């Protein structure tokens, strides 16, 4: 839930990266962390397993500086994608102001994308929320790999609400900032 503190002149917004395991959510955050200067980014927190898989969440605060006197921050979180970490996903999803659904474009991950999107809907429902009422965008990641689904296929498969989508190669930063900028703007317009 966004916080607007008129007393301390602060605005905080929570953005959550959701999607199937190994889809590139953490890679998005690492790219952002690597590219932003020290004044703009806070400390990146990663609660991962020894095998570098997200166990609970990754967290990266992005500080826009003062806007009309308000220190404006976007708190970026990823959820763990692996199926059995659903309790963690639900915890992180709570209070999200905007969601980026990071889908894996590889044809063999088709069902994983569908399952993860369904899981997102189910978890939102536990907070009495619907995906259609929540600001979100789609990111079709790994567009550099072989055996891809076409964008049209992915749109038909996943983007039932026809929200904005972005093609990305998170390992190279392609589409990463475009996606973040769009969801941040979408959320801000709903203030």
């Amino acid at each position, binding site marked *: 839930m966004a916080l607007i503190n008129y007393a*301390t002149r602060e605005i905080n917004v929570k953005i959550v990266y959701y999607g199937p395991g190994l889809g590139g959510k953490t890679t998005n955050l690492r790219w952002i962390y690597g590219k932003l200067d020290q004044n703009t980014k806070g400390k990146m927190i990663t609660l991962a397993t020894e095998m570098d898989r997200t166990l609970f969440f990754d967290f990266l*605060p992005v500080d826009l500086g003062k806007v009309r006197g308000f220190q404006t921050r976007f708190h970026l979180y990823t959820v763990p994608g692996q199926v059995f970490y659903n309790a963690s996903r639900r915890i992180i999803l709570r209070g999200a102001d905007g969601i980026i659904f990071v889908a894996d474009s590889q044809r063999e991950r088709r069902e994983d994308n569908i399952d993860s999107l369904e899981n997102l809907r189910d978890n939102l429902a536990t907070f009495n929320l619907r995906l259609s009422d929540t600001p979100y965008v789609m990111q079709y990641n790994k567009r550099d790999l072989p055996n891809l689904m076409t964008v049209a296929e992915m749109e038909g498969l996943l983007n039932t609400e026809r929200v904005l989508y972005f093609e990305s190669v998170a390992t190279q930063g392609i589409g990463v900032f475009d996606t973040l900028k769009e969801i941040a703007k979408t959320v801000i317009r709903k203030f």
Partner: protein
Amino acid sequence: MLIDRIKLFESGFQAIKENIEKLLQQSDAKAVLLVDRDGNLITNAGETERVDLESFATLAAADFAATSQLAELIGEQQFHTLYHQGERDHLYFQALVRNIIIAVIFDQRTTLGLVRVRVKHAAETLSKILEDIFGSQEQAVPEEEPRIEDISKDIEDELDRLFG
């Protein structure tokens, strides 16, 4: 549909701040923080110069959320307090109303017992203040404040500048 948001204004915030300062003094703690369960830091008092407050708020919220899930697994709705014992510094968390958490950082200058008693007392007062604040979320933004539409527009411009 507008997104949910907490709006804090001067009067409510000052009432919170005063009670947090009072709790700090009465408990002899190193620091007291108020965070929400989404990981937002609302205010803090005491020795926090060496603490990454943003990370602390995020992890405190996550800690509380994770243990709430544990509570559910054993048939409890939630754990109202959490205690973490360190070599020198310790943490004590107390859930308030409206998804707000008090976090106290303390050391050998005080005791867990005193912290627990003082937090319990402060929690009652703070919960009333928070209920008043949350009960009036639809109150109009004071005229002297910038319009939210203008802030949004400027944030969009800043996003364009930062992310190209």
